[in-house]
């Protein structure tokens, strides 16, 4: 983008003759003040004693050259041109009668105001350059990266609730059986079977599989719901890790235990939940 723009600005466009109307957005100058500052610096003009007429001519000359190569000039550049012409006219016209001048004495000369504005912008530019010379993280200096978690580490914090909710909707709700049939008296697989199914799919410590893939292998919703719950419960117990690299991205399940792990801990939880509360708790 920058190269063709520069080629156009220079008026030489090899191999592209007579293409008619160009619409080129030039990033070379960052606004009219930037262009003005460039011209002032180029001509070695002292900002403290700004010759308005000379600056105005240089500016209009530059805009004219941009026009000749058919560069679209943004409106703010034209506003600046008008401002400069107005300021130049103040230089050429005689001073106003003293009676009026007295009342206007408190008001700042627009030429001084303009010169100060340019100085202010110049100061900002130099400050920006000074800031750019500071050693910057990611460019000049680096800090210790938080190492990529390996499969054995706890990965749970890297998955967000929205990621799980997304999967819940995509796999469990929306992608339900095409012919939704209400079934009575039919119980789904038990919790342990679903947990074992997940662990088998992972195939031992370090094994990974995408959560959506695991759930997708079940035909029925109840099976997927139970498997989803089993995944959450096993993550809570630290048997598996959940990893999500991008917000709303796919969630990967990582096994941390062997696939033939004793599931009694898991099923106890389910039984405990279903059983009436123990009496000593009451």
């Amino acid at each position, binding site marked *: 983008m920058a190269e063709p723009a520069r080629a156009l600005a220079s008026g030489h466009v090899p191999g592209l003759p007579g293409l008619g109307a160009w619409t080129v957005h030039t990033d070379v100058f*960052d*606004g*009219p*003040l*930037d262009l003005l500052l460039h011209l002032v610096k180029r001509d070695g003009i002292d900002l403290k004693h700004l010759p308005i007429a000379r600056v105005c001519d240089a500016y209009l000359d530059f805009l004219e050259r941009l026009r000749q190569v058919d560069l679209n000039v943004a409106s*703010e550049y034209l506003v*600046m041109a008008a401002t400069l012409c107005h300021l130049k006219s103040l230089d050429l016209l005689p001073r106003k009668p003293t009676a009026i001048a007295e009342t206007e004495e408190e008001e700042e000369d627009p030429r001084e105001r303009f010169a100060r*504005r340019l*100085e*202010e*912008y110049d*100061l*900002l*530019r*130099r*400050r*920006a*350059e*000074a*800031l*750019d*010379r*500071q*050693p*910057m*993280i*990611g*460019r*000049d*200096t*680096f*800090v*210790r*990266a*938080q190492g990529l978690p390996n499969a054995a580490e706890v990965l749970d914090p890297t998955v967000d609730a929205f990621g799980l909710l997304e999967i819940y909707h995509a796999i469990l709700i929306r992608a339900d059986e095409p012919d939704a049939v209400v079934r009575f008296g039919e119980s789904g697989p038990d919790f342990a079977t679903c947990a074992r199914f997940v662990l088998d799919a992972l195939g031992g410590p370090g094994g990974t599989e995408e959560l959506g893939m695991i759930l997708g292998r079940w035909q029925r919703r109840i099976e997927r719901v139970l498997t989803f719950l089993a995944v959450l419960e096993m993550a809570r117990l630290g048997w598996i890790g959940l990893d999500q690299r991008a917000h709303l991205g796919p969630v990967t399940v990582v096994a941390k235990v062997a696939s033939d792990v004793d599931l009694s801990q898991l099923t106890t939880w389910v039984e405990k939940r279903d059983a009436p509360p123990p009496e000593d708790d009451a």
Partner: protein
Amino acid sequence: MSDTIAPDLEEVPQWVAPTGDDLVGAIEAMLFASGDPLPLSTLVDALAGPSEEDVRAALERLRSACRVPGRGLRLEEVATGWQLRTDVRFAPAVLRLRGERPTRLSRSALEVLALVAYEQPVTRTQIEEVRGVRSGPVLKGLLDRGLVRVCGRREEPGRPLEYGTTDLFLETFGLPGLRALPALAERDELD
């Protein structure tokens, strides 16, 4: 597992606070393990023994030890504490390792950032007046990157938002505080 950087020292009765060379080494180890900037107070608390002056002196020793030729790390004091950072000279090596291109801010982003940093709090209108161009998208980009934050509303018609820089800004540019912003030599910096 504890969320704090300092271990639960009461459960480690055999802890003997390091002194001398060991204090410098311990601090280096802690800084490396942390990665993030560590405030002096955090170091003092975790070491449980050496005074604040001792720790500060050890930090200064570590800082000069890092300046020895042949070392790739520097110890810097930034807004939020002390941090080990790679030497500027070896940035290309780190970038090659990571296979990354250096993070760069565009010239307009630098201008807006400089204005906010030096003149804060500022409003968007102020920024646009000085720069002479619309600056909303650039400002939003800086907000998204966490370098600039909304720090209030100005009591004037419209109650416009006021912007200032964040700790992340100071960290990113290796500054201990806003006073450490590079000063310009010219006289007009004064007014």
